């Protein structure tokens, strides 16, 4: 084998080998991206308009931006941010830790009926959320957790297990055996192998999943609306309260809501941008599959 095929060595042939092309690729991606961003444009544009204006022509550019919508939105929803941030951070970190541990167990430990236990976890993905809503709510009520943040965090922790365990199990399975062997030689037990091998190498996927969870939990509405109300509402519940009660139509309320959604997407956007760097490296070692 020639030097050109050794891993890590760049050469002229390697560059050409992948036959990368740039300009047409960029062009097509740009078109797709523009189409994908239409909802974002709609949201921000109409956040600056009034109800009837949106009614008259939904996609027209806001010619007299109503910045006031944003200040109204902030006034009415800013109280909810600290609590929601706490809930989301605790839930996401908790999900990451617990699913990593279980994924490691499914990937690398041997025990009876492993497949059945795996399907027990996986099967949860198949249950539509609203079926369990009422029994779960009654349970939270019986446990006295209504109105508390843990009444939301605990179901979130449980709900995040299925996807996390499934995805991370294959991530850990894909870690080359030699790395674990090297740890075993040094007399490592499972705890050490977990922390020093599995965790770092699956970090990019952990972060990808964490991002997905953050977005999902941040925007969740149904359960928070039942568990936390009034002053302890989450951001999405607070925003939905901008809709006035029936028979009291307020024609601009939806636009103020869009302004509030726009504000609420800022922390997420920042998080996404910051986190993007972290799963650049090491992706090749943590490919996910079934």
């Amino acid at each position: 084998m020639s030097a050109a095929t050794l891993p890590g060595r760049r050469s002229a042939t390697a560059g050409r080998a992948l036959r990368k092309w740039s300009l047409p690729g960029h062009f097509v991606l740009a078109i797709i991206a523009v189409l994908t961003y239409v909802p974002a444009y709609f949201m921000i544009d109409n956040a600056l308009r009034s109800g009837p204006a949106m009614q008259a022509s939904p996609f027209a550019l806001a010619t007299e931006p109503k910045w006031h919508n944003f200040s109204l939105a902030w006034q009415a929803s800013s109280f909810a941010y600290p609590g929601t941030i706490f809930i989301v951070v605790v839930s996401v970190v908790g999900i990451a830790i617990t699913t990593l541990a279980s994924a490691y167990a499914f990937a690398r430990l041997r025990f009876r009926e492993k497949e059945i236990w795996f399907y027990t976890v996986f099967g949860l993905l198949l249950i539509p959320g609203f079926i369990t809503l009422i029994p779960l709510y009654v349970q939270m009520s019986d446990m006295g957790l209504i109105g508390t943040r843990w009444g939301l965090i605990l179901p979130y922790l449980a709900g995040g297990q299925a996807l996390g365990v499934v995805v991370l199990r294959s991530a850990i399975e894909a870690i080359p055996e030699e790395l674990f062997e090297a740890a075993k030689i040094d007399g490592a037990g499972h705890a050490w192998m977990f922390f020093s091998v599995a965790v770092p190498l699956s970090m990019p996927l952990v972060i990808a999943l964490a991002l997905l969870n953050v977005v999902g939990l941040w925007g969740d509405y149904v359960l928070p609306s039942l568990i936390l109300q009034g002053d302890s509402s989450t951001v999405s519940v607070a925003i939905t309260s901008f809709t006035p009660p029936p028979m009291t139509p307020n024609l601009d309320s939806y636009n103020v809501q869009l302004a509030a959604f726009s504000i609420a997407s800022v922390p997420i956007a920042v998080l996404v941008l910051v986190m993007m760097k972290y799963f650049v490296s090491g992706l090749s070692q943590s490919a996910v599959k079934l």
Partner: protein
Amino acid sequence: MMRRRQFMAATMAAGAAALAGCSKSSSGGAGNGPSLRSDGNPDLTWKGTITMGAQAYTPALPGVKLAPGTAKLQEFGKVADAFTALYPDIKIKFLGSDYTYETTTMKTQATGGQLPDVWWQQHSEVNTSFPAGVCTNLAPYMEKPNPFIKGNTRWRDVLNAQSYTQSYADADTQYCNNGDFVGTAFFYNKKIFASAGISDVPKTWDELIAVCQKLKAAGTTPCAIPAYTYGFGWLARIFLANFLGEDTCKKIDAYSKDPGISTTDVAVAYKKGLLDPRQNPAVLAWWPMAKELFSYCDPQINQLPANPPVGSPNPEAMMAAGKVGMIYDGTWAPTAVAANGGGIEIGSFPWPSLAGSNQYATSFDTANAVSGPNAAWQYFISSPRSDTSLRENGKLDAVVAWMQFFSTPERNTAICNEYGSFLPTYSGAEPTKDLKELASLAAEPIYAMNGGAEFTTEANDQISKLFQAYVLGQVSMDDVTTKYPQIMDKGLQDYLQVHPIDFSKYS
């Protein structure tokens, strides 16, 4: 303590009764109430905070969140202060607009025992789609005096008799404290009418269609009415009562001894064939007329389904944007359009006369049939099962007392008129001058019936969908003739399971 055990026993008995399919409500303490103090007011021993979802009348108190841009009201807050002045250990906490009043959420909360103490809801929703046992039956209390009204011997006497009948579950079960009234009318854009050459508002059905044609020729969308939400629900009331005629309506009203048409009356009428299209072709004869009207209505609004996403097109916004000639809507609409500041000048006219428009049409004026006690003053008290805090010793008495306290004619007038969209209906109440001409609506007899859609949520949903499908041209009249009785038959059957009726009593 004795009282608590009584409550629990009553609750368990109610549970057993519910199992047996009984329709009677469950509650603790059936109207006995606390003893009176020397000043004539009830002696309340409970201490704490009463939660109330007052919906449109919610006052702008500190700590009460309101939807951005809604009016800041004071009256209910003043009433609450007056109550706390009498009973310093009891506070009233109003829920802000972050309380959704969505029926699904409320029913779920009921199951978890988490409903607020006093709340608004549409009486038709509570009576049909809420399970039995969610509310406290107020009928026993309403038969007794309201201690906060001087000289009152029976609370029910100050309540509008028709509103009472229309909002009760059955003759012995009243969950709703109903105190206001909403009107409906056509609201039109004066400028658009003028430029289309329309000088007079239509007074007959044919004139209405002619107006629509003129507007269409002038290039505007003539009208906007949501075919699912208001189509069958509103139009059936106008047409059915008119096509049956005044005498038949009075006959139907007379089935149950209470004034006004209740669901019991409708059930008997359906059973006797008066509302059954297989025996009375008048029942469906108006559908083609409605279809013609909807052909002049905005197609996107026609197509809206049951739960359109927030921000969907709606008639009020279309009106405010100047994109429609007229809308048929409730009396809350002009305020919304005007608040928008677009400078749209709005006029109104009632539903036109149907006389001569159809072989079954009569000259009976049924324009007010869509109006009714379906507005903002519809307050319910939870039961100890749907709101576990009501199990506290003496709390239910306190909550009832609070309700009796705000349910006086003076307070009813003050609260309703401050908001100004709806008419107060307690005896002696005077509406605001803007609504003066509608005042008589509440006093006149209303023969409002939906022909059976009031039996169950399923019946209402299915028939509304069928109507919308017909109006949009997706099903034919033959389909309707087959499906309509099927839906209503099932609705009646399900209704009788919860509210059995002895039909032999009605001749």
